[in-house]
């Protein structure tokens, strides 16, 4: 048994999705919403939650590993750039190692224009 390739996950991140995520997370930091704080903040407009972008990578892992991802998954992420809605984001991964039943992948989430929004390393015990 060997670790599978991870299928990319692509999603449009618009303000409606960001607002829904703010409610569900919950994370009401005003820099993510249509607020004065967002427009006077460091990016001049609302930015998507970093955890919403990371959710695409987690979804990709869940699609391949199911409950094993919930039981033994781990991640380490650095956000590299803000995502300004609306933006189309793709999470993609490359297998880094596959040893002793533990698979480790290098993830990135990037825009259609190729801007890297985050990089992450994800591991899971699958066997």
């Amino acid at each position, binding site marked *: 048994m060997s670790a599978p390739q991870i299928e990319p996950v692509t*999603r449009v991140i618009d303000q409606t*999705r960001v607002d*829904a*995520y703010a*409610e*569900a*997370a*919950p*994370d*009401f*930091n*005003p*820099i993510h919403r249509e607020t004065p*704080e967002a427009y006077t*903040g*460091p990016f001049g407009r609302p930015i998507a*939650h*970093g*955890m*919403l972008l*990371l*959710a*695409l990578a*987690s*979804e990709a892992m*869940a*699609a391949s590993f*199911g*409950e094993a*991802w*919930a*039981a*033994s*998954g*781990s*991640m*380490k*992420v*650095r*956000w590299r750039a803000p995502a300004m809605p609306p933006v189309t984001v793709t999470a993609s991964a490359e297998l880094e190692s596959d040893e002793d039943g533990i698979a480790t992948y290098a993830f990135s989430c990037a825009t259609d224009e190729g801007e890297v929004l985050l990089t992450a390393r994800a591991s899971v015990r699958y066997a």
Partner: protein
Amino acid sequence: MTADSTVPIPFEDLSKGDVLPAFPLEVSTDEVRAYLEATGEPVERWSGLVPPLMLVARMIGGLLARVAIPHHLLHAGQEFEMRRALRVDELVELRPTVTALGIRQGVVMASFGIDAVAADEEVVATSRASVVVPRPEAAEATS
């Protein structure tokens, strides 16, 4: 540090090593559905279990409700490790600590560790969130 967990702790009162008040977490089926609909992940993929990144999001959300964060705080990094799956409607206690806090090149940098612990003291998951905030904003905390 001990405090009334209903009153947000001012960010500027935090120190490295602080143990913040623990708080409970129990995730319902409806909450899982709302989270998955928001992120766009297929709802049918998760039945009876909490998606791991949702658990981490709830850890962070609970922390944000209990610390008066400065305007423009940015989530710069995140780590987590699942020790086992968290079941829907399972009660866990979230135990946050301030694992790092300092100023580098005019930017306040802080890290919060949070453990999710079951009733029998089994650690279900651990996480570490790193945040940054421009120094002038650190004094303008808001709840």
